[in-house]
């Protein structure tokens, strides 16, 4: 078999195809922010790699609609059971499916983590430190911003000095962003156009070609039809295919085969109603903070520490909404156009960690659904409030969430359509989350009051899922080491949000991608050394 994908005459790259009999160098499970970057990295290094994704491979221009229920196909809708005093919403709240994973529906908000995010225990005496620091990820953050074509300000006001600025100018501010800017200015809170992984101008990308500029559709969370959002399906996946990786869609991994030494020899998966096995030398598990530990727990693997499924976290994510006299039309523009990290470590904080502030546009059904579920409006109070949709703007936070013993994911006794146990997730916020959220609510309400809001209301929620296969230095309390390798199974790696030891006070996507590249490079370096 030839190396690399072959470029055919019409410009399309023919995808490499491996047989299940040949032993490939690596199987990557999941093609989201965790799986896709390393897939491309391994393929570029000449490795024979196959990615398996549970979901479909979409052609957005043909398959996507500008309609929220019409795009529910982008969400991981297999049922999960939500327990605890703050039962967490999954599906469209935080869990995607399809080649590209949750980046198909992410809002594209891509701030960097800050150095102190990695050492919460040192700073506050709660939570845990990461076994790696900002310095390990910094080169990858820069590389990602360049490759993905992140749109952002020329000078970003927070965090350490940057070695390179964002490659594209910021996306235009929509109504919510202008209003938040107005309110913050009155209060002396600094703001900046936010870094977003959506192109403010056409951008040439290696292995992909020219990608078009964003048209400000505002439906990022329901999938991008134009390819301007830098989701994995239009960035690292085509790059990986260009370098000779094979991506198998609709392939749901159920288990593994092992040799007597305990190394994985094959990955077993369902495709087209049949069971297949792909022989391989290494496995990179990138299914996210629920499906990654679920697969391990179902098979009783990599859990000598007892930590698989533990330390489940979900970002504090309160939203505050208001109605304004101005015409806003909140479906327009990149939803999170403005950012403030002034609250990264607020001086008057009575909690550990911090949060960022983000302006929020919103799609109509999502907003209606929140008014119903979150505010409990019904009858004429619901329909009248919704008639003010065009005058609605939001701010939300993205904040720290500590790991607790009482927050974990386990297998329930109920099975799903595949006959596999449904996961049950216990989630109850602690004092720290409650104090942080109370601080944030006060700040957000003050911003909206200054900006001229009427009928302000808050929606307390938790967002991104994190934790469950903690990365650490000690095999007794961690699932993977500082390079993402399982302490128990030497050829199993995990690269996704499940290995985050702490939640970080920023949106996780960019950090997940940086970890993915870092883990790939650590792996390649070791492999190279062992061959010398």
């Amino acid at each position, binding site marked *: 078999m030839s190396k690399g994908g072959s470029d055919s005459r019409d410009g399309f790259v023919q995808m490499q195809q491996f047989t299940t009999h040949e032993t490939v160098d690596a199987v990557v499970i999941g093609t989201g922010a965790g799986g896709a970057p390393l897939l491309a990295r391994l393929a570029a290094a000449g490795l024979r790699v196959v990615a398996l994704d549970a979901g479909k491979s979409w052609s957005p221009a043909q*398959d996507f609609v500008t309609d929220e229920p019409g795009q529910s196909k982008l969400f991981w809708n297999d049922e999960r059971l939500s327990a605890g005093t703050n039962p967490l*919403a999954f599906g469209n709240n935080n869990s995607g499916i399809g080649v590209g994973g949750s980046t198909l529906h992410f809002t594209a908000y891509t701030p960097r983590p800050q150095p102190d995010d990695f050492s919460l225990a040192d700073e506050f005496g709660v939570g845990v430190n990461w076994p790696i620091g900002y310095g390990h990820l910094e080169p990858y953050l820069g590389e990602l911003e360049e490759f993905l074509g992140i749109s952002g300000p020329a000078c970003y006001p927070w965090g350490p000095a940057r070695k390179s600025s964002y490659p594209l100018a910021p996306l235009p501010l929509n109504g919510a962003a202008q209003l938040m800017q107005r309110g913050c200015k009155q209060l002396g809170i600094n703001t900046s156009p936010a870094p977003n992984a959506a192109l403010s101008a056409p951008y040439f990308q290696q292995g992909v070609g020219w990608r078009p500029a964003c048209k400000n559709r505002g439906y990022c969370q329901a999938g991008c039809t134009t390819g301007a959002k830098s989701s994995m399906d239009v960035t690292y996946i085509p790059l990986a295919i260009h370098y000779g990786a094979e991506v198998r869609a609709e392939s749901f991994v159920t288990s593994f085969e092992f040799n007597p030494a305990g190394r994985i020899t094959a990955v077993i998966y369902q495709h087209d109603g049949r069971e297949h096995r792909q022989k391989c030398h290494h496995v990179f598990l990138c299914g996210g903070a629920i499906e990654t530990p679920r697969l391990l727990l179902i098979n009783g693997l990599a859990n000598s520490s007892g930590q698989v499924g533990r330390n489940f976290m979900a970002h504090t994510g309160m939203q505050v909404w208001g109605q304004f006299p101005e015409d806003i039309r909140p479906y327009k523009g990149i939803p999170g156009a403005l950012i403030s990290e002034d609250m990264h470590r607020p001086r008057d904080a009575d909690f550990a960690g911090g949060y960022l502030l983000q302006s929020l546009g919103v799609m109509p059904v999502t907003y209606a659904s929140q008014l119903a579920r979150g505010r409990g409006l019904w009858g004429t109070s619901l329909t009248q409030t919704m008639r003010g949709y065009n005058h609605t703007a939001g701010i939300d936070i993205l904040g720290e969430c500590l790991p607790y013993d009482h927050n974990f994911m386990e297998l329930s006794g109920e099975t799903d359509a595949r006959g596999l146990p449904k996961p049950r997730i216990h989630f109850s916020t602690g004092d720290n989350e409650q104090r942080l959220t109370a601080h944030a609510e006060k700040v957000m309400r003050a911003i909206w009051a200054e900006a001229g809001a009427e009928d302000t209301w808050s929606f307390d929620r938790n967002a991104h899922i994190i934790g469950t296969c903690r990365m650490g230095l000690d095999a007794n309390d961690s699932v993977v080491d500082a390079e993402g390798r399982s302490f128990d199974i030497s050829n199993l790696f995990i690269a996704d949000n499940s290995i985050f030891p702490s939640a970080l006070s920023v949106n996780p996507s960019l950090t997940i991608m940086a970890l993915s590249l870092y883990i790939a490079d650590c792996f390649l370096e070791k492999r190279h050394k062992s061959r010398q």
Partner: protein
Amino acid sequence: MRDDHYPEGYVQDLLQTPFVNEQTRQLMQERLSVPEVIVPVFFEQEAFITLHAVAGRLLPQPATRRSPIDLAGAFDKKMAGNESNGWRYNDMPPDSEAFPAGLKAIDNMSNTNFGKKFHLLEPACQDRILSDIQAGQCSGEYWNAVVPKRFFEELLTALTEIYYSHPLGREEIGDVSWADVPGWPRPGLNQLEAREPLPVLKHGANE
């Protein structure tokens, strides 16, 4: 609070323009043309009648609307299709049990409190029952199968999502997000494109 009303019929007109892509147009047209469900597939007839009445209180539709959005019918179809949204409360039974049980409990509660079934009650009495369920202020063995406030939240949310996905629901709120083929070059405050409707003077307010 604002009480905006948008011009009737603009959605139908806009749907015929090149501002809407073909896949999106088809989906919207399907929702507009779907016939009213007379015989439910998932719910039993009795529960379906209750569902209609509950939907009418949760999302009252303008009296002037000639063919109201068939919320109960669309919800029956959704339930028959066994669609999940990816999660459910751990203290609730599966949706296929929870919704029929909750609707039955509403009728039982109505019988106990007012001596007749929910759909036969005056709107004020119906609203009292619904408020009590939302607040979790209801008891009786018929509420053993579901947590009342969770059942209320789930039903309200599901019906709300159906309502505002429907072209008439979108028209009511002045939403044209789906007419996005040229994009929105000016997304800032008070910057409207010609296809974005302005509110009109109030008429035909919701019941």
